[in-house]
C-alpha cells in the first residue's frame, strides 16, 4: 500500500479533483455564508447611499478571473440597481470591456429590464482607455482629458449623466473589481490619494493579502475572492428577500465545489506527509 501511495500516478489525483469539483457543480450543493466585516462594510456603503447616488464601477479583470470576480461585478451592479443608484462603468483592462458589456447585458438589460434603465441617464459605459495609473489619475483629476467620449463614441457632454461629472470625486463611491495590475491597489494609490472618495474593492484570492494593509482606511471594505462574493450575495439575500434563493447567486453556488476542492487539498497534504514520514522511517526517503 505504501509503495502504491509513494508512486501514486498523478492521474488518480486529477480524477479525485475532477470529482470533487464536478459532483457539487452537478448537484448544486450550497452552504450558508455569513458576511465578514470587510464584506459587510462594502455592502453597507452601497446600502446607505441615498437612492440615485452616482457610483463608479471599475471592472479590471478578464475571462481568466471571471469565475471568481464576475459574481462580484454582478452583485455590485445588482445592488446599485436595487438602490436605484446611477452607474458609470469603465475598465483599465483591454480584455475587460466584454466583462462590462456582459454585466450590463445580464443585470441592467436582463434582471432589471422592468426598471427600463436608460443609457446616458441611469448608466453610462466609458469602456477602456490605455495608460493604467495615468488613466486613473486622469479620471481623478479631469475625466475629459482621457474619456472625452463613452464606449460608443458619444461625447460625455451629450449624456445627461456624465455632463456634470468632472472627475472621480463627483461620484459618491468607487466600486472596483480587480484581478491584478492595474487594479485595486492602483485605484487606491493614484485615485484615492487625490481627494475624498469611498472605495470598496472586490479582489482575487491572490490579490487579497496585498489589499489588507489598505483596509479599513484607504478602502472601506473588501470582498476577498469567491468567498467574499458569496458573502456579499448572502448579505443581499438577508436584505432583499428575492435573493435568498441560493440558485440565483453564482458565488454561493460555486462555494460548494470550492469546499470539496479545499477538503481534498487538505487530505492530499496530510496523506502526502504520512507517506513521506512512513518512507523516512523505512529509510527509503
Amino acid at each position, binding site marked *: 500500500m505504501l509503495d502504491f501511495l509513494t508512486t501514486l500516478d498523478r492521474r488518480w489525483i486529477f480524477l479525485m*479533483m475532477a470529482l470533487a469539483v464536478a459532483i457539487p457543480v452537478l448537484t448544486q450543493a450550497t452552504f450558508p455564508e455569513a458576511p465578514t466585516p470587510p464584506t459587510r462594510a462594502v455592502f453597507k456603503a452601497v446600502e446607505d447611499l441615498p437612492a440615485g447616488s452616482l457610483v463608479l464601477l471599475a471592472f479590471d479583470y478578464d*475571462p481568466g478571473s471571471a469565475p471568481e470576480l464576475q459574481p462580484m461585478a454582478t452583485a455590485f451592479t445588482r445592488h446599485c440597481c436595487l438602490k436605484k443608484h446611477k452607474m458609470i462603468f469603465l475598465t483599465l483592462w483591454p480584455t475587460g470591456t*466584454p466583462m462590462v458589456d456582459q454585466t450590463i447585458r445580464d443585470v441592467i438589460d436582463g434582471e432589471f429590464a422592468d426598471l427600463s434603465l436608460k443609457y446616458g441617464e441611469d448608466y453610462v459605459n466609458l469602456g477602456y482607455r490605455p495608460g493604467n495609473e495615468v488613466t486613473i489619475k486622469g479620471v481623478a483629476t479631469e475625466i475629459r*482629458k482621457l474619456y472625452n467620449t463613452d464606449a460608443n463614441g458619444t461625447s460625455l457632454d451629450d449624456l445627461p449623466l456624465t455632463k456634470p461629472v468632472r472627475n472621480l470625486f463627483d461620484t459618491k463611491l468607487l466600486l472596483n473589481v480587480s484581478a491584478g495590475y492595474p487594479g485595486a491597489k492602483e485605484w487606491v494609490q493614484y485615485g484615492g490619494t487625490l481627494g475624498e472618495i469611498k472605495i470598496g474593492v472586490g479582489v482575487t484570492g491572490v490579490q487579497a493579502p496585498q489589499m*489588507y494593509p489598505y483596509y479599513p482606511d484607504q478602502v472601506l471594505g473588501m470582498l476577498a475572492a469567491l468567498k467574499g462574493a458569496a458573502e456579499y450575495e448572502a448579505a443581499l439575500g438577508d436584505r432583499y428577500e428575492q435573493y435568498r434563493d441560493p440558485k440565483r447567486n453564482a458565488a454561493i453556488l460555486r*462555494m460548494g465545489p470550492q469546499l470539496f476542492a479545499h477538503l481534498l487539498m487538505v487530505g492530499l*497534504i496530510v496523506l502526502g506527509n504520512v507517506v513521506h514520514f512512513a518512507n523516512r522511517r523505512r529509510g527509503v526517503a
Partner: protein
Amino acid sequence: MQSLLRNTVPALIAGIAGVVMIVAFFVPVAKPLQQLAEVWFTILAAMAFLIGGTNLFLHHAKKIAQQQAGWGFSAVTLVAFLGTTIVGLLKWGVPPAEKYPNVAWSGSYQEEGSALWWLYEYVMNPVIATMFALLAFYVASAAYRAFRAKNTEAMLLLGTAFIVLLGRTYAGTVMTSWVPDEYSALTFPGMTGVIMAIFTTAGQRAIMIGIALGIAAISLRIILGLDRSYLGADD
C-alpha cells in the same frame, strides 16, 4: 549623432517628464504641464500596442521563415493574431449603429454577434478559463508530492495553509462550531481572519514599504539619467 538619439534624447525626455510630475505635485500652477505629460503618456501607451503588435508579427514570422523549433506554435499565434486584428479592424458582422443605420461601419467593433465578439466569446474566453481551471489539478498534484513538513518553517507554512484552506469554506465553520462565541477567534474562520489581518498585513506592509523605497530610488536614478537600463542594452 546615433548615440544622441538613442540615449541622450530619451533620457532627457524621461528626466523632464519626471521633474514635471514631481514639481506639479507640490506646485499647483504646474498642474497643466502634468496633465499634458499624462495625455502624452496615454498616446504613447496606445502607440505601444502598435509597436508590440509589429514586434510580435516580426518575431513569429522570422521563426516560421527559418523553420526554427516550435515554428508551428508561431504559425498558430500569427493566424490568431492576424485573424483577430482583421475581423476587428474591418468590423466583420457588426450591424450599423441605431443612430446611423445607413453607415456600414458605424456600429461598435465588439457588438454582440460580430466576428470579434464571437472570437472573444467562443475562443478566447473558454481558452483562458480552461488554462486557469487546469491549475486546480496541478496544485492538487503538487500538494500531494511537494508540501512536506520537513522543518519548522515548512510546518508553520503547512499549519497556516491548513487553517486558511479550512477557514475560507463552510467546513471550517462546521468543524469549530462547538467553540463558544467569546472564543470565536479560535475557530477556523476566526484564525483565518487573524492570520490575514495581522500576520499577512504586517508582512505585506514591510514588503510595500521596501518596494516604495526601491521605486523612489530607481525613479530618482532614472530622472537624473544615472540609470538608463530601460533604454535597452548599453552599446
